């Protein structure tokens, strides 16, 4: 499969169909793959593909220096590919200008990441070129999608708050969660705004909680569950739980999963008169 990938990229570069390929490379044998930006056909051998290719490369599509490379091809797994659709819906990318190389994927990480256990997009669905073949997802993959959050919600509210207090007290406000998120493309993040200060910038529990509420809620109906935030967090906070709870709410209440259906209207910025309101007096 790797040969096929390299050949595909070589051809794209040789033909001039694209000027650069965003893919996975390896900096050191023991570490996860790193992003590489290949501009010359002879460099395609730097590309790698294995189960340590975690990164969601779509993040780089909003980087100025990457865009300046010219017409781009990008390698995406089925999960990452969903981000492309969200970015397209939010006018951040011109999909027609990007060659999408879909990578068949049976999951990454040893052991498999939690998101891979319930993954139902082993094969990218809207890629221009698909490389490789993947196994068919388990029929009950979808059923497991929200298992962790459902388990977490069985705890008492006090217990939940205690959990987050403990977890978030470790946050150092490095904003790695924001930096890796493909949906965090704001030119100036709300947390960096100082007139008025919306979120306390010091790494105190107050500011950390406000930041994570904000980050999670800004992803409501947008997060594709790539879990890069969780992977990037140096404090090891399970941010996935927050994202998952909103993904669950989006699917349960509005039948919506971001990045799945190109014809579905994004749920934020829209409404239905039938939205439920039993919680409103």
């Amino acid at each position: 499969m790797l040969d096929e990938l390299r050949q595909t990229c070589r051809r794209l570069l040789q033909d001039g169909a694209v000027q650069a390929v965003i893919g996975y490379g390896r900096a050191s044998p023991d570490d996860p793959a790193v992003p590489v930006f290949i501009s010359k056909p002879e460099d395609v051998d730097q590309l790698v593909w294995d189960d340590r290719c975690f990164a969601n490369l779509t993040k780089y599509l909003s980087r100025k220096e990457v865009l300046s490379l010219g017409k781009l091809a990008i390698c995406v797994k089925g999960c990452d590919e969903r981000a492309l659709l969200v970015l397209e819906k939010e006018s951040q990318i011109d999909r027609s200008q990007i060659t999408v190389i879909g990578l068949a994927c049976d999951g990454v990480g040893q052991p498999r990441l939690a998101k891979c256990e319930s993954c139902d997009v082993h094969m990218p669905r809207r890629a221009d070129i698909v490389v490789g073949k993947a196994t068919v997802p388990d029929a009950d993959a979808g059923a497991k999608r929200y298992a962790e959050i459902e388990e977490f919600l069985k705890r008492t509210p006090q217990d939940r708050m205690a959990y987050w207090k403990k977890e978030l007290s470790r946050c150092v406000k490095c904003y790695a969660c924001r930096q890796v998120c493909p949906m965090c493309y704001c030119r100036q993040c709300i947390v960096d705004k100082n007139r008025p200060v919306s979120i306390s910038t010091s790494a105190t529990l107050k500011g950390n909680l406000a930041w994570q509420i904000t980050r999670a809620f800004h992803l409501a109906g947008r997060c594709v569950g790539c879990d890069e935030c969780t992977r990037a967090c140096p404090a090891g906070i399970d941010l996935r739980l927050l994202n998952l709870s909103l993904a669950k709410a989006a699917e349960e209440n509005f039948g919506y999963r971001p990045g799945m259906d190109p014809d579905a209207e994004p749920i934020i910025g829209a409404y239905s008169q039938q939205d439920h309101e039993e919680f409103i007096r």
Partner: protein
Amino acid sequence: MARIGVFICWCGENIARNVDVEQAATQVAELPGVACALAYKYMCSDPGQSLIRQKIASEHLTGIVVASCSPHMHLRTFRKAAAAEGLNPYLVEMANIREHCSWVHHDRAEATAKAVELIRMAVAKVRCDHALQPIAIPVTRRALVIGGGVAGIQAALDIADAGYQVVVVEREPSIGGKMAGLSETFPTLDCSQCILTPRMVDVGQHPNITLHTYSEVESVEGYLGNFKVTIRKKARYVDVAKCTGCGQCWNACPSKKTPSAFDYNMGTRTAIYVPFPQAVPARPVIDRNACLHFLKGKCGVCAKKCQAGAINYEDQDTSVVEEVGAVVVATGFQLYQIGKERNGDGTVGYGEYGYGEYPDVIDSLQFERLVSASGPTGGEIRRPSDGQVPKTVVFISCVGSRDNAKGLSYCSKICCMYTAKHTMLYKHKVHDGTAHVFYMDIRAGGKNYDEFVRRAIEQDGAQYHRGRVSKITQENGRLIVRGVDTLVGEPLTVEADLVVLASAMRPADGVEPLAQKLNVGYDENGFLSESHPKLRPVETNAAGVFVCGACQGPKDIPESVAQATAAAGKVLVMFGHEKLAREPEIAKVNETNCAACFTCVRACPYTAIEKAEIRDRKGNLVKRTARVNQGLCMGCGTCVALCPSKSVDIEGFTEQQVYAMLESLE
């Protein structure tokens, strides 16, 4: 450095009884930025306002807080007072210590403490206020009227008579609408065409009116005062400028069998036709689905007959763009489709009445054509199946109206009246005939309306039966109408020669896409939504767009005309200004920070936010951004809540102000 003046009103005893205003003044005087704080008996009175003005001048105030009643009561008053003294009116805030405090909290200490806190919040807010200037929107003093029925005609004539240009768009080949096809009108029985056609002619000849018939609104751009409307003129295949309307063509046309839409398929017309003799403009169109030239490639009789050389088989649809400042929507109604599927929702109503199956079951507009002197029978009442004069006619009201099970929930309002009229017209023409009416109840509210119905029953002998009809069958050429008379409490069967169904009134086809183009709301039945049911009955939530006639809800001719005049009046109020002043408390985008996700564009209820591009001097794209159209924004702030980077804010209710108010709380 802020110098805030705080003015606390006693409101006589209203505030002072439960709030210690003097103590409150003493307390808030200590707040940072407060230059003076004082209490007075009636701040809204002349001396009260003078006091505020004096202090603005003597204390060099940069903002004021009036602690008194609700801002809905007097914010405008105090803003005016400030403006009169040269202080920008948007540097005035109010603390509502009456409705929200002294009137609802009777513990004096508690109420005073809360009043102080409310004032503190207002001071915090006013310190973040900044001067705003009203937004001036230029107005194109030219109106568009969509729909050329009686409502559209009235609105167009009123605006044109006031001296402004009016563009009328009508999708049929002639103006006149539904009223042009009616026989006589209740409650006076004056002939519909006799009163309408002179007004149609007025429209056709008015120097201020541009008429586009056989045309539809394709797209609408712009906003209040500055609309650009693209109108598609459908190909007529007749050059209107050359045509004299002599009639040689339609008299000679060999294709004569097309059902006439104007007669609701009760008669036929030729392929080249004017819908009715008094049409305005009196210029024909060719129906290419009936014309032998288009169907078979031969014929050309009309072209040969036309001495003016007006026939043009090569004619194409064309577009015109009209720039207008206001739009009046008067698209009218159609009848509920009896026994057929309703649009989309799959409900089938009243198949049991046999409409469409039995030729002698017709709807009320078809009956109008049967009675009309200009109709297919020349005004003689002859039933469609065999041309016999019906001796027994059954009229059924509320077909589709007031029926949650199968029809529409609302009352169509005019059916009781026209059904009474129908029985009278019938009786006047068929003296030995009998008219039966099945009704739910009679709604005849209106000047001379109930008298009219009484006349139908008492003088013209209409047989009214309170009850519904369950089924109509056909036997030996007669219609067996099975119903019930609930006043007698017995089933009732009438053998009839003709049945007329008073079908419910629905908005005209295509009104929903039009409403979307205009950004006008509509209800679940498709009737256009007025801005306020009582106080803004002809305005819509789309600024500069007005409604009148049956597109807004079921109504009769006098009401439609009255509403049309009202809509025209509103247009003229707008046209009374060269520029419109709009409130500046609206959304504002920080275009440098905007990430151009355009969630706000999707969400804005007024389509007031557009996708814009920022380019450098050489024309290279620097970035894209959301941009607020000041003519459209109403200041709801939905965009602010949705913007993740808060690159948009609402003047007068800024994020900073809300935070400052929160911070001020103890």
